[in-house]
């Protein structure tokens, strides 16, 4: 059973290096291209990449029961993200986005 578990373990140092490289990329993009139109989507993608690496390999979701992944993914993608998007839409001043707290819409 120990061997089976050892065989499943990824190269954690390599994952750490990937995370570091992604972080460096984020900092470069944010500091060198502050007004670029593609900045926000690229940063979001990079953050998802980093988060994915941590969740899949450090938190072992890649190797554990799919039920744990379900709990986490459900909370994140079906509750948290829609909740945040709803808050942003409801309380922003974007014209036509709804009745904002500050009177927009």
């Amino acid at each position, binding site marked *: 059973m*120990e061997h089976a578990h050892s065989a499943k373990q990824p190269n954690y140092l390599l994952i750490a290096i990937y995370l570091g490289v992604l972080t460096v990329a984020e900092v470069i993009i944010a500091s060198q291209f502050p007004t670029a139109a593609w900045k926000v989507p690229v940063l979001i993608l990079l953050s998802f990449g980093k988060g994915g690496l941590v969740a899949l390999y450090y938190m*072992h979701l890649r190797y554990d029961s799919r039920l744990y992944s379900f709990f986490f993914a459900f909370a994140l993608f079906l509750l948290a993200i829609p909740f945040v998007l709803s808050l942003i839409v409801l309380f922003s001043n974007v014209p036509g986005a709804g009745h904002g707290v500050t009177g927009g819409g």
Partner: protein
Amino acid sequence: MSSSAHTQDPRANPAGAAVEQAAHLETGHGEGALPTAMRLDSRKMGIWFFIASEVIIFASLIGTYIIFHGKTPPEEGIKHLELNVAATMTFILLMSSFTMVSALAKIQEGDRRSMVRYLIATAVLGLVFLGCQAFEWSLLFGEGINATTNIFGATFFTLTGFHGTHVFIGVLWITALVLRATRGTGFSVTNNMAVELGGLYWHFVDLVWVVIFMVVYLI
């Protein structure tokens, strides 16, 4: 799981068979593992439920920051943030995630001494992170920005303060693991669930910082 692993007849003694089965559930569950209908360790399920609830909490705080982002003039808010300090904090926390997962890997190989070293390194990195956060806060206080100054201050300090509290609790948790590891009731190849649970919490705290770093400092 092979039937030869069971000495109890599930039909004659379902409770005894369930307890026996629990001992074979996932590695590291040697002691105290409670069987569940889904054949998973109840402690690990519990921590994942807890993490799911924490996802909601942090999502609401991050969402609030996003909503009010831009309501404060940059020169009274985000312009005062130091990207270099935040990037350093990010690297520190990522390194601490590496040391934490390495600690778990070491005890799963039976190397208790290395596990303790990695746990101590994780706790130290956590404290360094908190020190950097205190330094960043002191810079903002020196420029007249605090939680009551404006909307940026209120949302920034609430979000980072809440996260920092979680880091501090994580440091205490890891310290408790170190103390337990150095005493008689330490960990082993078959008994390391507590390390894994602590690791899950710590990695989640790191995950949240990844999002905070992007939302607050980069965008």
